[in-house]
């Protein structure tokens, strides 16, 4: 039965969740055993910190320390182009950024990019998950097809997408893609086709991840809950909003968060799919431009760091949604 719980959790796991702090093993409450327990508890805590060490070491070396460095730099006028000593300038970098037009442009583009792609990914992902939720012939194959865009390494598929959508002149499909490019650029301004390709690529890959992720979420919901709710809802549409969405809420929240973080921090894919000819800068590419091309490390650091509070706020909102049931039964 326990084996079943670990491998096929969708079939009635309710019974196995019996973790309780007071186990029969420790029910004899003599003074001796209490002292023993306290000592072994202390040892447990020490072991716990020892086991956490590798993770915390990695995270502090690769994330915390660079982040602190970035914060410090954002408050100075550090630049490789500077001859003199680095001076502390306070929030001048931030204030200066907020007054530039480029900042607001890149912020707007980033927000539009993140919101549009996340909404599309979520819609497609829920669709995929619902398509796969019930058994039918050939489900394994369709599942595999939906899983592949995410499993196909994005580091190389992004190169493939670039050469598909912006092919070199001699290929057989260059004319078709060229026509598409001129049509899109003509309608929305230069650079629109390149940016559209960034959006399409992000959606293509992300919808696959969210679809599989939410499928796992649907499997995790006890089927009785679904069936009960089925009896009470009339139309499919109503069932979707009254049953499926509320039950999937925590998983949808997690999926949205992961999707937003990738979109907000995107630099590599935008760079690759536009071949560095960036007409619509996102925060990531704008910061890269400031730092690498302009040598303005301070403003670049300040710009990058402005993403963190936005993401943190998103995370706190989502924690409320997807972490809330834990408090009731931990």
């Amino acid at each position, binding site marked *: 039965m326990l084996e079943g719980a670990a491998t096929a959790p969708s079939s009635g796991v309710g019974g196995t969740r019996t973790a309780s702090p007071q186990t029969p093993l420790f029910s004899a409450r003599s003074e001796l055993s209490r002292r023993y327990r306290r000592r072994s508890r202390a040892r447990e805590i020490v072991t716990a910190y020892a086991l956490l060490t590798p*993770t915390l070491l990695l995270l502090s070396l690769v994330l915390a320390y*660079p982040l602190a460095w970035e914060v410090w730099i954002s408050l100075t006028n550090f630049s490789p182009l500077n001859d003199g000593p680095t001076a502390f300038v306070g929030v001048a970098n931030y204030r200066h950024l907020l007054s530039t037009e480029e900042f607001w442009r890149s912020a707007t583009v980033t927000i539009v990019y993140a919101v549009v792609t996340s909404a599309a990914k979520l819609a497609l992902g829920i669709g995929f998950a619902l398509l796969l939720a019930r058994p039918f012939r050939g489900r394994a194959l369709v599942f595999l097809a939906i899983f592949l865009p995410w499993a196909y390494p994005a580091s190389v598929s992004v190169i493939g997408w670039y050469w598909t959508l912006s092919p070199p002149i001699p290929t*057989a499909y260059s004319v078709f893609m060229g026509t598409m490019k001129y049509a899109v650029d003509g309608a929305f301004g230069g650079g629109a086709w390149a940016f559209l390709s960034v959006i399409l690529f992000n959606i293509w890959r992300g919808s696959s991840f969210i679809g599989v992720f939410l499928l796992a979420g649907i499997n995790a919901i006890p089927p009785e809950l679904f069936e009960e709710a089925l009896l009470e809802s009339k139309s499919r549409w109503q069932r979707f909003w009254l049953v499926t969405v509320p039950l999937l809420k925590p998983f949808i929240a997690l999926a949205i968060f992961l999707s937003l973080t990738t979109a907000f*921090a995107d630099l590599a894919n935008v760079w*690759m799919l536009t071949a560095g000819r960036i007409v619509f800068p996102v925060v990531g590419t704008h910061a890269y431009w400031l730092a690498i091309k302009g040598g303005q490390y301070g403003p670049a650091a300040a710009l990058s760091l402005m993403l963190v509070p936005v993401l943190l706020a998103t995370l706190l909102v989502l924690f409320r949604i997807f972490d809330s049931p834990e408090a009731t039964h931990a």
Partner: protein
Amino acid sequence: MNPRPWWRKLGHGSLLVLATVYCLFPIYFMLVQSLKSAHEDVFGNPLIVTSPTFENFAELFEREGEVRGFVGRALRRSYPFLDWLENTIVVFTGSVAVTLVASILAAYAIGRLRPPGFRWWRRIIFATYVIPHTILFVPLYQVVIRLHLDDNLLALLLVYPTLALPFCVWVLSTHFQHFPREVEEAALIEGASRARAFWKIILPMSRPVIVASGIFTLGTIASDFMLASIFLLSGHNQTIPAGLATMEVALDELLAVAGINLMAIPVVIICAVFARGYVRGLTAAMVEGS
């Protein structure tokens, strides 16, 4: 339940076909391109390949530095693809191993040993996701240089695990936290040590969740080319994504597409083999975590 009417069946079927085509078309297109000769690339139908050839793949493995002829006035040289392949295998297996070991240990500590404030530990580790690596590459590079790891594969082994660690710790620790206590305690009563109980009982029973974490890690690190191209400078030390990104692709489009496929196919096969386990593991963590 009534049998479903034919139009609903048709709708379901066409949605399935649509979803499959949408997901697979770009992959199919890249595969077809890589099998084309230059002649067919220019004159053939872009959607199909009539006389498939492996010359693009074979060309990738030619000895490095060999002059492969001229395109216009540009000289085409071979790339050290074998080195890239080797580096990629080392980096990917190493990073997945480091990630899994570190996250299993941390997750066991959080979910099972529960130090004071364990829920906050989990939240803090997950919250590191709000610090994107892409904004940190300048200071990250400083760290790498200070450790004398620039142009060294070890730099990636250090950085890659943190891309997936927060997610893996989250998933694994919720799994361990709700793992039935009696099973472990039964072993402890029998006289087994905690370590032994973990190794012999908890770990084997957690296989789906570990598989899910591993696949997530592989998918995440395989999507990076930026960190790889920043840290690995010389041609021999690059991984496939970093190397492909340096190609003169205007001249070597077919070669690049072949390289894409050579990199992607093994990863896709690994993911496909474990696809079922991936969903099952995520589900297991969600049942227990929600």
